[in-house]
């Protein structure tokens, strides 16, 4: 193909595109359904990919939230357990001015028949 004929073809293509006849001229209309199908697939792929990204971002946020809850739980558990010893109870009772002390006799157990 000479340079002249190349530029001539290019001019025709541009004109056809501008006048909206390009696809008809190259007889693509018979592949219309295929093109639409391809377009739909691509659109669906992009949409799904965006949704996956969004979901994974939420998963990341939830992981952070869960980790924070775990830390809170550990801190609160430690604080509670600290109070849950005989010595801690004795000290607390003393601070509150209570006369109650740790038991000196075992508890009496009532067993039902």
């Amino acid at each position, binding site marked *: 193909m000479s340079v002249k004929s190349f530029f001539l073809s290019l001019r025709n293509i541009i004109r056809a595109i501008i006048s909206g006849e390009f696809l008809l001229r190259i007889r693509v209309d018979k592949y219309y359904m295929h093109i639409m199908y391809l377009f739909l697939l691509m659109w669906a792929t992009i949409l799904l990919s965006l949704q996956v990204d969004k979901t994974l971002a939420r*998963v990341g946020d939830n992981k952070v939230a869960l980790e924070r809850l775990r*830390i809170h739980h550990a*801190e609160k558990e430690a604080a509670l357990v*600290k109070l849950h010893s005989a010595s801690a109870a004795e000290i607390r009772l003393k601070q509150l001015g209570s006369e109650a002390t740790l038991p*000196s006799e*075992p508890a009496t*157990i*009532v*067993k039902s028949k």
Partner: protein
Amino acid sequence: MTKRQSEIKDNIENRDRIHVVMFFLSYFFMALSVMILVWIVKIQVSYSVDDRVIGLFRPTEQKHIETPVRGRILATDGRPMAISAPLYDIYMDCTVRKQDYRDSGKDSLERVWRAKARDLATYLSNEFRDKSADAYAKAILEGRDKGARYLRIQRNIDLSTLQRVRTFPLFKEGPYTGGIIVEEHEERIYPYDSLARRVIGYVKEQNRIGLESSFDSELHGREGYEWRRVTDNKRWIRDLDSASVKVQNGNDIRTTLNVDFQDIADKALRNQINANEDIRAGICIIMEAKTGAIRAMVNLSRGETPQTTLWERENLVLREVGEQGSVMKTVTLLSLVEDGYVQSLEQTIPTNNGFVPNYRQDVHILDYQRETGRREISVMHGFEISSNYVFTYLAENYYGKQPQEMFDHIYSYRLGEAFDFDITGLGKPVVNRPGTPGWSKTTLGTTAYGYGLSVTPLHVATFYNGIANKGRMMKPYLVESIEKDGKVLRRFVPSALNESICSAATADTVTRALKAVVNTGTATRLKSAKLQVCGKTGTAQVVLTPQERKGSADPYHDTMGRKKNQGTFVGFFPADDPKYTILVTVYSYLSGKSFYGGTMPALAVREIVDKIYALDGDWAEVLHPVATVPDMKKTTEK
């Protein structure tokens, strides 16, 4: 023009065209090579990378390492004794936006920032209460003037505090305006503070002790990783196309420790030794007789000087290998009864003025002779008053010709080996048996009353537990199970070190002797305990180091006559149906005073026994209703 001439002309024209093309091509490539050379020189000399260019080459994926959460160490009832949680350090970049404000030429922006910094100082002062608001404000504003980019605000704060701090003025504007810098570091939280800290232990780089060290592979878990990519919204998300390894958090360790018993033992020991600055350390073991499960293990000690506070500094229960004194007379008695040399505890031996050839005279026998006027003493009474003479005489008399026989017993009681234990580092006993360098003609006798044989307190407690368990010597253990999210992965069942160290009849006979020690012997302070305790006291002098001896020829005394004592009480309770074996030992500094097993250790044991009696449901009074309460609802309906 002929055809031939025409062909020649065409050839020449073609050649000229090729020449022209080749000419331009060669110039093009020449120019290109010159340009490349110029670029190479430029890159080498003066090229600086444009940020936009870096952006193009920056990887869109990052490898994210996920560290596992360390497993918890639990008490036997599930109460956590060690938990992992992150703590945070807060720093401040005081110079944040300073240059921007200066460049913009608006002084008002800088003034607003400084006003917010003063507000922040007030909030920080109210939150942490360690410095005044003025002190905080001064530090921040001076830091801004001097260019401090890393001003320490507070260290080791928890997540709740951090979340509050993030809402403070200036800090709530984030790192790029507020200058807040948060650094996270994983920390181990011990809710019970010093309680059983030596047993729980820790892992800090090269320093590894206790259960944290022995079970590190279980507690640690396994690191994971995942590749992350950035989304169009600049969010980092997991890249599902890349390989990832899921993080595995550490398993939990459920110990046999009973927090209440540990607390009671710790407090009872402190009550006895806290005020006495001659006491260097005190230990306590409480072991379940039937299983060997250790319910409490206390290791309190002071530092080099008596002024230091009592703390769990070293695991003396496992590592203090030493001569245990008279508590080892039970070893001799058990062997003699088992071998049939002592048929009855009432069997008598001559007193011989407390003298056995080659041995030091036992002056207590002279007192006995004087008080009773008798020239013979029963084995039982010798055990009650803890007579060295009686046990030297018995050992020499019955094992003198066959000393190996007695040492075979010692080995069968596992007093000659460092048996397997859940915490590494159990001290190896030193047994001066026949044929070893430490053996002499007096070793048999001294071993019979507790010297010459060096063991750890855990060995002693395990031996007494064997007697409490009618001859079945259980292996002491500290870990019950390995768990994951409450589900048991592996359970450790009790096992025996020696299925039978003696017959049940021998164990009963020795138990009778141990009861007599508490009733009429050296441990009468335990007579009034709320559960009947039986056991043996022991007072031993500790061999001094050459530095402590300061030139003294006596291995037990320095030149000023001072010595190091250890007083022990070891036994079990209730005597008739033993549930727990208990050992308490106190160790003194170099001192002129003596510390006996029948004093501080016995008093600590009494306090522990009384409190366990009140807390343990086993001794509770059980009431069975003898009548039924009428159903009042039915009566009313009628």
